[in-house]
């Protein structure tokens, strides 16, 4: 790795001040599983690295019946995947975190890093989006909240300013009869990046689908919500035909590219198959 100046601030204020003082070339370091790969092989040579390790208050998972779930940005994939409350109430998120890399990757990789890295194939962003999660952001201008679905501008690019730090995520409490799921298709079974990722949440009410969320990964420049499919589902009783129709609308919403993990045509086909399958599973989970 090229040389850089290293900072390990112990407070968020200090971290933000360092980012403000040194400008855009400065990189934040969380688990390092994306940043170090970019610095070793991706031609990224930041003059300064600001580690978040010693910054207090970025860890922790708290569940509150009225406020919902809060997850600090420095929480690891391993902690999320093994948290009982998340597995029960926010299953799609536990599933997304649980498929990231290997045991080693999951013990280092953080949720904040996964989001800030802004890969369209990231495995925790579709689950966050289906739970209407908001990102908590602190910068020199103060704090703000942005819905996770609105954070991304393109591959590797977010709306975060150079002096802003993601501090955590808030996920509202889902309605009582809710089922969720995240599935991805990868050419290799494990240790691979999604060719297509699908997150689904169905919340039932009085025999109908009250609220539906479908978020697709790796089939556009950012993760996308299939809003037409969601609208088609909401307010109707679940049925085979309805799910088939929603799967078609999700396909229409995707605009995949061809690369080593699959052709555009194959990916679009997968969006249909996987959306249908995920809707079936989410319904079953919502009913149990």
């Amino acid at each position, binding site marked *: *790795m*090229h*040389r*850089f*100046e*290293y900072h*390990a601030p112990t407070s968020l204020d200090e971290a933000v001040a360092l980012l403000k003082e040194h400008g855009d070339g400065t990189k934040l*370091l969380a688990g*390092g*599983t994306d940043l*170090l*790969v970019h610095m*070793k*092989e991706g031609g990224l040579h930041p003059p300064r*690295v600001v*580690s978040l*390790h010693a910054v207090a208050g970025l860890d922790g998972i708290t569940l509150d019946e009225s406020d919902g779930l809060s997850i600090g940005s420095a929480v690891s994939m*391993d902690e999320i995947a093994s948290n009982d409350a998340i597995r029960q109430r926010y299953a799609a998120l536990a599933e997304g975190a649980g498929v990231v*890399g*290997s*045991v*080693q*990757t999951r*013990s*280092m990789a953080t949720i904040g890093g996964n989001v800030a890295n802004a890969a369209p194939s990231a495995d925790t962003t579709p689950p966050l989006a289906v739970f209407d999660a908001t990102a908590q952001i602190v910068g020199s201008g103060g704090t703000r909240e942005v819905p996770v679905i609105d954070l991304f501008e393109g591959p590797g690019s977010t709306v975060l300013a150079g002096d802003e730090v993601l501090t955590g995520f808030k996920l509202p409490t889902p309605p009582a009869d809710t089922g969720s799921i995240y599935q991805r298709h990868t050419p290799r079974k*494990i*240790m691979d990046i999604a060719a297509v990722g699908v997150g689904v949440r169905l919340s039932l009410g009085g025999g109908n689908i009250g609220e539906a969320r479908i978020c697709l990964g790796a089939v556009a420049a950012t993760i996308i919500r299939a809003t037409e499919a969601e609208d088609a589902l909401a307010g109707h009783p679940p049925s085979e035909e309805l799910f088939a129709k929603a799967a078609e609308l999700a396909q229409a919403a995707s605009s995949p590219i061809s690369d080593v993990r699959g052709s555009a045509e194959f990916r679009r086909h997968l969006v249909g198959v996987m959306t249908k399958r995920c809707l079936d599973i989410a319904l079953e989970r919502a009913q149990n």
Partner: protein
Amino acid sequence: MAKLEVHYTINGRAHEAYIEPNLTLLEVVRDELRLTGSKEGCGTGDCGACSMIVDGKLVTSCLMLAPQADGAEITTIEGLATNGDLHPVQQAFIDTGAVQCGFCIPGMILAGKVLLDQNPKPDEQEIRSAIAGNLCRCTGYTKIVEAIAAAAEA
């Protein structure tokens, strides 16, 4: 670029090094502290040859910046044997014949140890997912999976 002092407890012994911050934990442990059991295969988190246990967690030390691990308790393959007795996972690898060239083995054994610490009776699928981040070019994995299963019985 100022040099930094880092302190690690490795295999129960205190170590310190005076380093540039752009080194990985793997580089410091191998090149400065001369514990060369951990290997560098890929350098990008894919092969697991550099696996170490840092504060109780299995990590790929090629992706951990050396100053990030300052103050950590670290176990490397050199620290598994106690008073000359091999760890059960090490012994099982030998008894099963799971070692060929040996390059992946320190990481495999540490991954096996971490698995058995958390799950003393894993099934085959659990063993395979526990070593999914450890690549072996020689054995085809069958003997490695058998060795970890044998260590669980030991």
